[in-house]
């Protein structure tokens, strides 16, 4: 029989330390739904999603019950809608968002991602129309998430898109100002976007992916923190080893659920995303792990180093536990979704500049950061350009998900509720980058791109 200490440890992780499967995301290709008549295309989209994902929720619930492990989110990602929009003879492509929303409601998922465009080297047919329609699409739907990839290491940065996305983020917040600017929280601007990411709001089903696939995102900041708490007096190598061991266990569970879900749904298994994704629940915080390593508060000097260690150890521990690793894989630092980050930001210890430095070593980027509602759109574009440059040069995914809190300013709080959490409006450097942002053009790819 299995060691009883191990059994109790697993139960403890689930009961007291918020261990869960953060998301089971079904990726569905919509390439065969393309039609020049948008209404026909929307019908095909709805039919395909509801057919493929009809058992997603029941199967996940069955697995939850049998293994006793909560699966917090069940989601769907689809082919970037701009590829479908390219074929349509209309500019009103919000219909696609409405079709996705209807499908999401029918199958019961809590988010559907893929209202996306990939414009890292320029705009193709459909891309402009899609980006223009994002604010309306996110305002008239509840479950649809959008993302735009504006750069990559191989291509450099599309600065015309950077300019456009600054405006788009602001517009998304404005049109949903009556609902806590929620529109901006469902939009991610990427550099080096992965094609198999199961996490929202940035999930989409890349063109190189199979027809349908199951991707799983694991989580467990609480487990890592508790493990560290129980082990006083370790040197930093010991800390890294402990994180690795814990990440291994968490990921094995993700792999088990992924394999089981894929078998029961008769859909190929794609990847496990090795992530530490915090939630606003007390104890389920990445910031608290960094503090457990010995910082007075997240944001203090030493934060970037601790996060670098954490991010690396999570990957090293997880990679052996899963047959296919992908997605974003690493530690997330979404401010409004992490109780420790919220606290540090409220105290003014955690600033946007520090977060920017942290994104060079974490798995994604400036995530769920609430900024003053009157922040100029060019400043938002400037932040996107900085963040994308970090991703481009370091061959990693970076993203920007900023929420301009319309009508609010530094010192106020914006609350979304649920997993998206709440947070203080953070101070932004308002010096203008307008001339740079309005130059447009393509920022050339760095030398790192020339690997062949």
């Amino acid at each position, binding site marked *: *029989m*299995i*060691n*009883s200490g*191990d*059994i*109790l*440890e*697993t*139960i403890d992780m689930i*009961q007291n330390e918020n261990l869960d499967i953060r998301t089971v995301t079904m990726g569905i290709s919509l390439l065969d739904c393309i039609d020049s008549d948008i209404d026909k295309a929307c019908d095909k989209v709805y039919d395909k999603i509801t057919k493929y994902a009809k058992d997603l929720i029941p199967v996940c619930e*069955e697995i939850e*019950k*049998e*293994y*006793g*492990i909560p699966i917090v989110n069940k989601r769907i990602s689809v082919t970037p809608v701009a590829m479908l929009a390219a074929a349509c003879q209309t500019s009103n492509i919000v219909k696609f968002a409405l079709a996705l929303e209807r499908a999401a409601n029918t199958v019961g998922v809590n988010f559907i991602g893929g209202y996306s465009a990939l414009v890292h080297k320029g705009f193709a047919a459909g891309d402009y129309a899609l980006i223009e329609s994002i604010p309306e699409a996110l305002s008239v739907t509840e479950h649809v998430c959008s993302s735009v990839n504006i750069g990559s290491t191989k291509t450099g940065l599309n600065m015309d898109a950077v300019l456009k996305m600054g405006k788009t983020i602001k517009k998304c917040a404005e049109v949903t100002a009556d609902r806590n600017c929620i529109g901006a929280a469902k939009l991610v601007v990427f550099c080096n976007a992965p094609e198999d990411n199961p996490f929202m709001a940035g999930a989409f089903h890349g063109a190189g992916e199979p027809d349908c696939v199951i991707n799983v995102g694991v989580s467990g900041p609480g487990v890592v923190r508790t493990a560290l708490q129980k082990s006083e007096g370790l040197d930093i190598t010991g800390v890294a080893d402990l994180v690795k061991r814990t990440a291994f*266990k968490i990921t*094995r*569970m993700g*792999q*088990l659920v992924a394999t089981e879900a894929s078998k029961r749904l008769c859909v190929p298994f794609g990847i496990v995303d090795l992530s530490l994704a915090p939630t606003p629940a007390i104890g389920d915080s990445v910031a608290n792990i960094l503090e457990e390593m010995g910082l007075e508060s997240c944001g203090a000097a030493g934060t970037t180093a601790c996060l670098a260690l954490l991010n690396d150890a999570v990957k090293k521990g997880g990679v052996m536990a899963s047959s296919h690793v992908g997605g974003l894989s690493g530690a997330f630092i979404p401010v409004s979704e992490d109780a420790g980050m919220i606290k540090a930001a409220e105290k003014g210890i955690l600033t946007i500049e520090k977060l920017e430095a942290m994104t060079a070593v974490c798995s994604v980027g400036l995530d769920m950061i609430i900024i003053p509602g009157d922040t100029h759109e060019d400043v938002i574009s400037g932040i996107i350009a900085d963040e994308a440059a970090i991703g481009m040069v370091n061959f990693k995914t970076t993203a920007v998900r900023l929420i301009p809190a319309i009508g609010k300013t530094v010192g106020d709080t914006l609350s979304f509720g649920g997993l998206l959490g709440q947070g203080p409006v953070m101070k932004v450097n308002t010096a203008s980058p307008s001339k740079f942002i309005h130059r447009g053009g393509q920022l050339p790819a760095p030398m790192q791109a020339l690997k062949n």
Partner: protein
Amino acid sequence: MRAVITVIGKDMVGILAKVSGICSDCNVNVIEVTQSVLQDMFAMIMLSDISDCSVPFAEFSDKMKALGDELGLSIHVMHEDIFNSMHRI
């Protein structure tokens, strides 16, 4: 298929009898039992064979949970594989 039943809570008379009573009602064979008292807390772990369980797994698990709620104990029924995958390479 084998499941692990864990019972954690304050020690009292008849825990084992009540839990194994449900197992017997549902035609679940108990293979192995270990129990210990950790810091005044009672911890029992049962390995059981649920291949011939007379009710669906979810119902069996719900019955155990209901018993746990009634006695003020935490009772979980989980597929053996979750422990195997987490703790064995």
